[in-house]
């Protein structure tokens, strides 16, 4: 299954459209499902998959677990969850010029984030099909490795020391 998720706060129809267009042409053998918040005006209804505006944490975990490929905005939550579970993920940044977010921090995320196996960075909707094709190919051939569910011990040890320090 392919899981499209664009967070629960803001619409991101540019990505929904692009994925739908790709699905129309390449007709993937697996199902697609989306957690997508529709915009208040002229929401785009995809022809090739179903969407829901908001999944509960339990539903989200279930769908995420079933998915082999995640398509997402460049949000850290989705990226971290995908890497932790060893899922392939394609990320496309929201952009202020399309009124998709309050600032362009997602462009910075895509630029600054280190490469990880299974993480595919997409610049924009024109770039998406190439990336999806690559991700689908690598699904068949490679085994992605998952990252540790916890941050580096050195970091959490230092935080713990601060937490346990009594007084100011």
């Amino acid at each position, binding site marked *: 299954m392919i899981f499209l998720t664009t967070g629960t*706060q803001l619409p991101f129809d540019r990505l929904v459209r692009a994925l739908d267009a790709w699905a129309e042409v390449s007709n993937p053998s697996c199902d697609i499902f989306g957690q997508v918040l529709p915009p208040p005006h002229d929401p785009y209804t995809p022809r090739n998959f179903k969407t829901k505006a908001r999944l509960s944490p339990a539903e989200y975990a279930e769908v995420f677990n079933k998915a082999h490929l995640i398509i997402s905005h460049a949000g850290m939550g989705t990226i971290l969850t995908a890497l932790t579970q060893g899922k392939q993920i394609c990320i496309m940044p929201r952009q202020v010029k399309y009124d998709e977010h309050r600032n362009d921090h997602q462009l910075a995320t895509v630029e600054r984030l280190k490469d990880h196996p299974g993480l595919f960075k997409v610049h924009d909707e024109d770039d998406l099909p190439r990336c999806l094709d690559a991700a689908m190919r690598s699904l068949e051939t490679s085994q992605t490795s998952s990252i540790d569910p916890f941050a580096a011990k050195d*970091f959490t040890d230092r935080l713990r020391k601060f937490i346990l320090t009594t007084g100011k």
Partner: protein
Amino acid sequence: MSARPKLMVVASAGGHWVQLMRLRKAWDDLQIIYVSTEPGLADIVQSMARHEGNPPPKFASVTDANLSEKISLIRQLFEVFLIVLRNRPDVIITTGAAPGYFALRFGRLFGARTIWIDSMANAERLSKSGQEVGKYADLWLTQWEHLARPEGPHYMGVVL
């Protein structure tokens, strides 16, 4: 030596929450009050604690809001205030966004020690709340080395 500190762990649901939970080894076996914007996370923190052999944490949810939703934001501010007032944590740790900012400011008023870890999503500049919270945070952190400054925010590590 005093008793072990009571810790309040605050983040809005989504990316801020996912990042903060990657740090939970830092509060293994402590008394925890989690605060977030998604009531469904209550079950998740309970089963996580059970799984990892930790004492059952408390969980409180608050109204979801961002800087452009004034009414929800004011409601959230009051809810966070009451939770901090009732629980009187010794330490507050947060990755943001709005509920973390409020909790840290109120906690500070009541004498809690405070930790702000700015979201990894802010790779070019600190978040708005992350900038403002600097003077109220006892530990003021960015997750990007190039954003660290001698006067803070400091860099101590990254969740990924």
